[in-house]
């Protein structure tokens, strides 16, 4: 536990940062003691990223001061921050795939790296001391995502580190890997290193952290001791009083099969892509099938096969309502009743620079608004208005550009657009990724309502909690292979975690 009597490692006073049209940080105070694991909680857009960029010297605050070991300091840039002993592990790794672990770390350290073989030795020592096995000579592209994260952490640890900032470190890990990471972090803290743990997963914060600062809309909305309060209290601090925090949904049983994948194998042409290996999967009308998995295990490749961006030449592999669709284009599959919500909202789900009306036409063109090659814009407008009102999309109107909407509102728009086309099968990738809790609940409700109307739904997500909440049957994808899909009540977080790591024996018997 932190020592309350000593000098704080880092103190932020009154930190304020104004971006055009958005007050990202508003008079934020934060104190982290040596040996303390401090959680920074908040929804997307609450100001967490800005604050940590200020600490790491990437962004200059407009106002406020920063005390390091009790002395005021202006952090000029990340190099200066590293010199002070601040290390940071970003959500998106900054590693070179074709270089070895040692070479990557040497690049980050610059002149301090010294000779490569002594550095490799240091890496071995550090990684074994903190229980993070990595082999310094391996090339990064051969590492799993969890291992890559270890490289990022070890890169911070080979320096003399006093404060480690981790940005959503668990979002790329299986539950078992999360446990291993926590062991490492606890050991690190016990040796006196302060840790700033940025997350929105409350049970992890509760399991790991000594203190928590909660941000909402750029301000500190509360501080608490996560070991003492329950997660609902923290969730309230994050989202405010009026938003429903979570719901449980009754599970359902599907009827006839509407989406069938049988023995799908695909060799990815991308050197860093994942090859799909004998994937079989059935989605029935009136059920939600959830597929968990750590990013980069073949989800993108599988989704491309399902949407039709990647066509499957071998017949009898993919059928939609008993029609073989493997060799059909996306629009032909849509005509047969397939709806699709892609992972990237801006860039594939919606065209950023186009209005909501035009984005309604983007996939809604099959159902009425196009006659003889001409667009009936009044019909498109009516469709856009219907989506906006039915799914409570917060926007000035249908003329607003897609990229002016928040992530949650745009996702509500996209999901509404797909649902209102009355599909027979809906495929949704990471439907609530980066979405605030209010919008996530609305999206879950919409999916459940759609399921109850008899549509077959496939959800691929990295968010295990979400999958347990809404799926009726659940499975996991690992290295291009799909585990057996079992009824959710018969699974557990622990079993699913093993499946995400490639151990499918846990599900074998029940499938």
């Amino acid at each position, binding site marked *: 536990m932190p020592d309350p009597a000593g000098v704080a490692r880092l103190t932020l006073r009154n930190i304020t940062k104004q971006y055009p049209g958005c007050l990202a940080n508003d008079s934020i105070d934060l104190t982290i003691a040596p040996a303390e694991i401090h959680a920074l909680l908040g929804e997307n857009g609450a100001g967490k990223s800005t604050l940590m960029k200020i600490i790491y010297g990437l962004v200059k605050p407009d106002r406020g001061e920063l005390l390091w070991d009790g002395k005021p300091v202006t952090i000029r840039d990340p190099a200066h921050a590293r010199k002070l002993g601040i290390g940071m592990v970003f959500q998106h790794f900054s590693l070179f795939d074709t270089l070895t672990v040692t070479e990557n770390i040497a690049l980050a350290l610059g002149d301090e790296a010294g000779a490569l073989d002594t550095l490799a030795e240091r890496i071995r020592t550090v990684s074994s001391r903190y229980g993070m096995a990595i082999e310094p000579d391996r090339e990064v592209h051969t590492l799993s995502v969890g291992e890559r994260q270890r490289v990022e952490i070890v890169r911070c640890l080979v320096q003399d580190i006093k404060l480690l900032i981790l940005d959503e470190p668990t979002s790329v890990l299986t539950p078992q890997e999360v446990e291993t990471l926590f062991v490492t972090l606890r050991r690190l803290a016990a040796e006196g290193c302060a840790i700033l743990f940025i997350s929105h997963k409350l049970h992890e914060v509760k399991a790991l952290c000594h203190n928590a600062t909660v941000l909402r809309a750029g301000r500190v909305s509360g501080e608490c001791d996560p070991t003492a309060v329950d997660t609902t209290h923290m969730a309230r601090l994050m989202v405010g009083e009026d938003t429903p925090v979570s719901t449980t949904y009754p599970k359902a049983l599907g009827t006839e099969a509407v989406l069938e994948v049988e023995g799908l194998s695909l060799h990815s042409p991308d050197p860093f892509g994942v090859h799909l290996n004998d994937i079989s999967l059935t989605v029935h009308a009136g059920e939600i099938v959830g597929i968990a998995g750590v990013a980069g295990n073949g989800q993108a490749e599988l989704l491309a096969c399902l949407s039709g961006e990647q066509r499957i030449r071998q017949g009898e592999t993919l059928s939609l309502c008993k029609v073989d669709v493997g060799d059909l284009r996306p*629009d032909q599959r849509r005509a047969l009743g397939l709806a699709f919500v892609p992972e990237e909202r801006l860039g594939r789900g919606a065209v950023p620079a186009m209005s909501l009306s035009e984005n309604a036409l983007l996939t809604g063109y099959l159902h009425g608004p196009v006659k003889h090659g001409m667009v009936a814009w009044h019909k498109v407008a009516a469709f856009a208005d219907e989506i906006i009102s039915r799914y409570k999309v917060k926007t000035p109107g249908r003329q607003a550009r897609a990229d002016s909407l928040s992530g949650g509102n745009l996702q509500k728009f996209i999901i509404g657009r797909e649902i209102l086309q009355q599909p027979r099968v809906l495929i949704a990738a990471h439907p609530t990724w980066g979405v605030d809790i209010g919008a996530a609940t609305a999206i879950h409700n919409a999916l459940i309502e759609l399921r109850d109307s008899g549509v077959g739904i496939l959800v691929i997500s990295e968010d295990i909690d979400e999958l347990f909440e809404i799926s009726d049957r659940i499975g996991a994808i690992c290295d291009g292979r799909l585990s057996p899909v079992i009824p959710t009540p018969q699974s557990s977080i622990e079993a699913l975690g093993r499946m995400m790591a490639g151990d499918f024996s846990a599900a074998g018997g029940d499938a």
Partner: protein
Amino acid sequence: MITLEPRGEPSRSMAWLSPVLAAGLTLLSGFLLFTLLGQDPFDAMVTILYTPIADTQGIAELCVKATPILLCAIGLSVVFKAQIWNIGAEGQLLMGGLCGSYMALQLLEADGIWVLPLVLISGVLGGMFWAGIAAVLKVRFNTNEILTTIMMNYIALNLLLWAVHGPLKDPDGFNFPESALFGDAAILPILIDGTRVHFGLLLALLAVVAVWVLMSRSFYGFQIRVMGLDAGAARLAGFRERRLVYVALLISGALAGLAGVGEVAGPIGQLVPQISPGYGYAAIIVAFLGRLHPLGITLATFLMALLYMGGEMAQIGLGLPLALTELFQGMLLFYLLACDVLINFRFRLKRKAVTGIQG
């Protein structure tokens, strides 16, 4: 200190103000330039920008000059919306002129209402053929269309020079490098008596309206715009990318080809080595100056046509080199690109930023 600060969202008014600002800065630079050259700047500006259109005959000539530029630019607006950078309108125009001339020369003795359409269609097909080659290379081999279309411009020019010095040369033309004069049936009718304004202007205005309808009302136009803004979304929505690339490039080639045949079958009346003083290149500037919008392009076309005429006036009246036209075109595009920064950024006066405490 003045800094550039990103705007929250792109400024709509600035998108239209930027061309105006660019035109203003071009004028200002022209002013300085003439002063440095020892000319009276007011006099020079009047010579370039007003004298050419001081009478109705001048305005008619402006329309004659504007016709090919407008056709090329409106066609380019279609491909540019698809983010396909066709720099080859010049070559497509030359091929249109060449193929149209070939057809007209085959029909020297023919008479009838069908002759002119046949000549025009040949020109259009010539332009489409030239753009089609670039389209095939892009779709089949993923070749960068900027390079291929530029190279095709040179090939088209040399093909035309070969034809006019060789097979299409007028046998009774005392060995001058020009073809025989086309038959009357192959010549575009004059719209206004006593001027050179011909039927091509109507075709160009028709093309503007057609492209307007295509891009804002038709589903094809919508797909082309989506493909340009966001290819990933277009693919996921099931739009057929290859087909759209062909359609966009062929439309732009067809209109450039029409511009070319409109010149040889219009004001020129025969095939000569010089059928275009770079209209196809000027059209690129016009398309951007007009914000790829039909109305903007029409306005920008007339400005560009005026610059062409002004350059000639400056050569005759002030003894300045004809390169002046290109200089003004260049400045216009340069200032436009510079001013476009203001769509997404704004200037801000800033004193020393953070009053932080140095550690």
